[in-house]
């Protein structure tokens, strides 16, 4: 057991660095750095570069378009993309429905849907949560009634991230109202252009339009778009939730986040010294690095287990809990660091000139990002639910 990269790994690291330097879209540079909201085109421009190279889905099996990288190579990849501040790809196709399709789908379904996910030609969204079904996801009420070769779907989904751009959605729907909650659910792939679908924006606290309500009224879905067996969709849902949780730790991105906090703390003055010399603030950064390192090595141990054949299990809830808390803490320290300039709301800035700036650029999104990042302990199964999973599934309580 050791931490050293082999010569092959070092060569791979160099290859990745060179590839990013030469191929990362120029107009995306710095965008993630400033927390800009990204357009569909922004997301797709990096996605397409990676798809062309064959590096868009490192987690997938090679036969479906994965890279065949070792766990160490995957680690290097996530480190290097975070270090270079590459934007993160939308997870809904690549990390969520893709693995469900290649794990549970029929050969026809794999052939039909996986290429569009890899190429980026199909933008996916996730139809899970409902207004009455958040943490208690299995209580969902959107129903699908069989009518010949179709299902007729009626109901309402919510918190549907980036549904405003979506070509396809994967939905949990109730196909058997008489069965026990988890046993009457099916997993449907729905073309978002089907008549009867209405997408309405939900504006979040920082003014962002990321999430939506999706209304379904008599939406006719071909039965061939059901993944796995009827009424057995919960199996797919559980599989997907565990997959969602592993990526959610966000270790590499948080490492980069700590570097950004340090940069801000070096620029901000506290009396005659930079803020980073303030003993209290410095200690907070050190504590965050401590927590992040603990998370990183927990994730590495978990990944080692996975490459030894253990699938992501309920212990991935640990990664989600600590990862999300660290992401929030980063935004909290940033907001504290920028002082008075946390208050100006950048969406309301009018015309101005360089002689009369409104604080440093790094301050402009500190508060909206802090507000928005409260979501990380709520989405993907709230942290309360994750603790329930650990208590029940890991500890047997």
């Amino acid at each position, binding site marked *: 057991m050791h931490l050293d990269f082999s010569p092959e790994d070092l060569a791979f690291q160099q290859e990745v660095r060179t590839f990013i330097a030469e191929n990362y879209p120029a107009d995306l540079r710095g965008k993630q750095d400033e927390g800009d909201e990204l357009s569909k085109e922004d997301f797709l421009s990096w996605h397409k570069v990676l798809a062309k190279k064959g590096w868009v889905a490192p987690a997938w099996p090679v036969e479906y378009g994965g890279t065949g990288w070792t766990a160490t190579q995957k680690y290097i990849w996530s480190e290097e993309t975070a270090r270079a501040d590459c934007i993160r790809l939308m997870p809904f196709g690549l990390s969520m429905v893709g693995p469900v399709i290649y794990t549970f789908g029929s050969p026809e379904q794999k052939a039909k849907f996986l290429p569009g996910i890899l190429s980026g030609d199909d933008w996916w969204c996730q139809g899970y949560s409902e207004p009455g079904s958040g943490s208690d996801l299995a209580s969902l009420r959107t129903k699908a009634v069989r009518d010949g070769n179709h299902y007729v779907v009626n109901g309402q989904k919510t918190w549907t991230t980036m549904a405003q751009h979506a070509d396809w959605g994967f939905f949990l729907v109730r196909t058997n109202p008489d069965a026990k909650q988890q046993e009457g659910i099916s997993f449907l792939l729905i073309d978002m252009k089907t008549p009867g679908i209405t997408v309405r924006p939900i504006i979040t*606290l920082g003014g962002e339009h990321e999430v939506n309500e999706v209304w379904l009224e008599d939406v006719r879905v071909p039965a061939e778009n059901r993944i796995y067996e009827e009424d057995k969709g919960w199996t797919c849902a559980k599989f997907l939730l565990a997959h969602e949780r592993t990526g959610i730790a966000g270790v590499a991105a948080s490492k980069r986040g700590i570097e950004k906090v340090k940069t801000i703390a070096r620029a901000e003055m506290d009396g005659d010294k930079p803020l980073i010399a303030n003993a209290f603030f410095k200690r907070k950064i050190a504590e965050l690095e401590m927590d992040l390192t603990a998370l990183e090595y927990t994730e590495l141990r978990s990944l080692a287990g996975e490459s030894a054949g253990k699938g992501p299990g309920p212990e991935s809830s640990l990664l989600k809990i600590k990862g999300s808390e660290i992401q929030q803490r980063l935004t909290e320290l940033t907001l504290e660091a920028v002082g008075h*300039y946390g*208050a*100006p709301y950048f969406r309301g800035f009018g015309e101005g000139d360089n002689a009369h700036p409104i*604080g440093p650029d790094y301050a402009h999104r500190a508060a909206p990002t802090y507000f928005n990042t409260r979501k990380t302990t709520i989405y993907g199964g709230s942290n309360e639910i994750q603790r329930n999973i650990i208590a029940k599934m890991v500890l047997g309580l």
Partner: protein
Amino acid sequence: MDFNYTETQDMLRDTLARFLADTYDFETRKKMLVRPEGRDPGIWQALATELGILGAPFAEEHGGLGGGALENMIMMEELGKVIAIEPYLQTVVIGGGALKHTGGARADAVIPEIIAGNAVIAFAYAEPQGRYDLANIRTSAKADGAGFVLSGHKAVVYAAPWATHLLVTARTCGSIRERAGVELFLIEANLPGIVRRDYPTVDGFQASEIYFENVAIPGDAHLPGGIELIEQLVDEATVAVCGEAIGISRKLHEGTLDYTKQRKQFGQPIGKFQVLQHRMADIFIEVEQIASMALMGALKLDTPAAERKAAVSLAKAKVSRSLNFVGQNAIQTHGGIGITQELAIGHYFKRGTMIENQFGSADFHLGRFEDLTLAD
């Protein structure tokens, strides 16, 4: 010792609370925010003329109601309960406070205008490099004949776009961070050479960057008292936002408690889950301590400077910590709906978050307390 409010103080609270209940519901507030001026100036006029309560902390000889810090706290608590976008803190507590402390002809002239609702004052004290150190001032006021010339840049001046007057801290002599030479000036807001960049704030207010480009001001703009006066004013303002924090945190608690009773998951109200019961109990505990510390701060405002500063710093540090806990847990308990613009709860969270660092973060105030009381 007496912790009871007087009948007059109770009446003040009731009058304001009733008025705000009628005029300041969440939907009406939303509409105010999207008006070009970012507020409804009619509300301020009504507070002045219809209710006649802008004089709450002023002496009767100026047309006031004869109150002080407790009256300001009561007002701020009630304004906090509706997340009011009204310049009470800036105009009455700080601007009015400066005039009360210095007295004289300026006080006689301007205080009645505040009470009448005609004068709106913004407090231009922060600077880009200064954080919460009130003496970390670059803006200069150079003597020039009978008056002064102001030059410099003031950061994030709340209420400046609405102001008739600016209360400005500036240096008449000495180097940056030196206490001696920092003085207070009350000037007209529209003097030649004052350049403003206006913007909304994340908590729904309007504010400005203010650039003084060789602004000639008259000699009587100077309100004598130096850094000691400025520190006293900011301590009074700090206690006032602690009062606002009572209102904000009570509404965060109340809204979240209601939600835990109504929201059903797993076949029962989520408030039936012990983990959330304990969380609600903890929120309750923090809210009560906010109320206690705000009151303690208000009752200590008239003590000698060292005692006053130590007390205000302890109060603000605790209020900041508690607000952080209450706000974050209110949102977490609501889940996704807490992060939307649709519900009031997120807007209370935003204002509460801004109060955390206003006039100094918890770390800043714990540091000031240590310097004052824990010297080796």
